């Protein structure tokens, strides 16, 4: 008899998730070769993560707008004309044939942002050029005195404080009552009162309109992801989560305020971090379940070298990031940590992670040292510089990749990838990275 999910070990859960991925339910493979290629991609990813020598170095293409850029499609078009976005991604897979691709979902929908009046970013055609990728607007989206509200009830904080602040159209949501107020007959009637207020009703209409747009968007995205599988390619991630510290430092408090909070109110920061951790384990695991892909993408920001001291990393950043990783691993997921900047001073911490449980894509980190320290613990990847891709030659790229494959790729445990999620590209250098690795990166 099949074991119930709750009774399964982390390893059994992971095996079950990989089996689901491999089964490719509902996928129409375009050819027997495409099916074989998809299965080989799954096996290659699984092997490399688990530190078993794969057949060759896997090729991951990490990109937000690069796929579109290569075909003259602007970031604005990606965010507003989904068919153009999808068409570029399709052509990209046909022409470049990476093993692992980034979903077009990374572009997001500008139409949804327009409907909601999103204030936390500027996006193409909305505060910045149509040719530029979206960019974060630094700010305090959670005020210093709101920590307790967040800790008491994060969902209530999100619903009644955060959403009204970051979306113009949802400002009236501040007027609704906390949902735990709803209890029994009188509670039900009372709870409904704010929903009779015209501005609140307008906010709900905006949500419905955004929801309709989201359905149009996701249909395009999911259809493409199925098609891409049918072509033999593997979507790099099935879900996403964030380090609790980055939720505070990027999403809520902003970089500067968060840095100061570490000195002025360390206790409340630590309580908030602990409060947030299980929420993101749930997010990553539930998305992985929904998508049928165990890999959970976790972009790391404010824990990079220089962004805090070792003492602060040990106290504020690492404990809840580690808990997030272990929580996801316990759910059978494979965390994919994406480290822009450099992580040289943090590498020792990574040796605390279970062997073969996750993979880390680095940007500026010293890869030789990372291999030396982490080679027996976790799979690493990345480090092909954006500058080289965009301003270098194919020969330079090949030489760079050769060194990475020779040194970091020795005996497996390495995925070739850009160090950053690219917005732009150059055909010759990207082809060089992919084609050279496929040829030279074969393990004998």
């Amino acid at each position, binding site marked *: 008899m099949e074991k119930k999910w709750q009774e399964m070990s982390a390893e059994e859960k992971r095996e079950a998730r990989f089996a689901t991925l491999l089964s490719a339910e509902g996928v129409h493979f375009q050819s027997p070769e495409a099916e074989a290629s998809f299965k080989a991609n799954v096996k290659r990813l699984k092997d490399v993560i688990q530190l078993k020598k794969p057949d060759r170095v896997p090729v991951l293409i990490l990109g937000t707008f690069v796929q579109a850029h290569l075909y003259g499609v602007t970031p604005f078009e990606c965010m507003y004309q989904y068919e153009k976005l999808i068409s570029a991604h399709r052509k990209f897979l046909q022409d470049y044939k990476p093993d692992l691709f980034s979903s077009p979902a990374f572009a997001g929908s500008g139409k949804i942002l327009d409907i909601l009046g999103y204030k936390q970013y500027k996006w193409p055609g909305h505060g910045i050029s149509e040719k530029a990728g979206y960019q974060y607007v630094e700010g305090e989206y959670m005020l210093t005195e709101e920590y307790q509200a967040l800790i008491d009830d994060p969902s209530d904080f999100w619903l009644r404080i955060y959403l009204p602040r970051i979306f113009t159209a949802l400002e009236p949501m501040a007027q609704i009552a906390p949902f735990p107020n709803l209890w029994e007959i009188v509670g039900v009637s009372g709870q409904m009162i704010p929903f009779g207020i015209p501005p609140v009703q307008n906010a709900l209409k905006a949500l419905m309109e955004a929801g309709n747009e989201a359905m149009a968007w996701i249909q395009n995205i999911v259809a493409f992801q199925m098609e891409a599988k049918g072509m033999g390619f593997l979507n790099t991630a099935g879900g996403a989560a964030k380090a609790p510290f980055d939720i505070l430092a990027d999403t809520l408090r902003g970089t*500067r305020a968060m840095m100061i909070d570490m000195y002025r109110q360390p206790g409340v920061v630590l309580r908030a971090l602990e409060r947030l951790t299980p929420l993101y384990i749930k997010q990553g695991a539930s998305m992985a379940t929904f998508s049928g892909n165990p890999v959970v993408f976790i972009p790391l920001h404010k824990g990079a070298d220089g962004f805090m001291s070792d003492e*602060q990393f040990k106290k504020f950043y690492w404990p809840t990031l580690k808990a997030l990783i272990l929580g996801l691993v316990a759910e059978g997921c494979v965390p994919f940590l994406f480290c822009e900047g450099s992580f040289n001073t943090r590498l020792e911490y990574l040796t605390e992670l279970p062997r073969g449980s996750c993979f880390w894509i680095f940007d500026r980190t010293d890869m030789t040292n990372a291999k030396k320290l982490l080679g027996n613990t976790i799979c690493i990847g990345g480090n092909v510089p954006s500058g080289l891709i965009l301003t270098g030659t194919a020969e330079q790229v090949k030489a760079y990749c050769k060194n990475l494959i020779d040194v970091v790729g020795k005996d497996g445990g390495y995925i070739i990838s850009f160090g950053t999620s690219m*917005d732009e590209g150059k055909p010759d250098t990207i082809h060089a990275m992919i084609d050279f690795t496929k040829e030279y990166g074969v393990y004998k």
Partner: protein
Amino acid sequence: MAKDLVSALADLKEKEALKIVEDRLGGGEDPLKILDDARRAVEIVGKRFADGEYFIPDLVYSGEILKRITDIIKPKLAKASEVKRRGKVVIGTVAGDIHDIGKDIVVFMLDVSGFEVFDLGIDVPSQKFVDTIKETGSKVVGLSGFLTLAFQSMKDTVEAIRKAGLRNEVKIMIGGGQIDDQVRSFTGADAYGKDAMAAVELTRGWLRG
């Protein structure tokens, strides 16, 4: 409690530093002297950052404490004090890019290192750099950018400076998350700095000669 504002601020003891400022003002001391101590303290912060003892949050926090101290002292100053500066630097995040955290750290470090900094902000058109170089006579230009689109904007800015006939008048440094020597060569800048200290060292070197 230490009486020394310089060490309290340099050690990032906010409450202690503010208390000393209040006490010294209450004791009738010249506000300029207090402000001078605060400046010396922030110089020490900069030095500790350069030595790898302090990190970005320490800089940000010291800046925050300094701001509080300045807010207390400013109303009591007869006129703004003039500090002798070691040279002028024009800096900004290049066109198309709105990121400023890295740039602000460089501005802070150049400022505490004694340079007069003309901070043009974010998404700065190349012409604005050209105009400011002309207006201020700055000999050093810093171009910041976080996104890869900044590579081209930096190249365009260097080119605009050249077209304005100013290329031999200034040294140009670039920096940002994705910048390396490969990108420097693409843009035609004189140097790239991997962090704020590198920017200070480059500026020192150029303005000395």
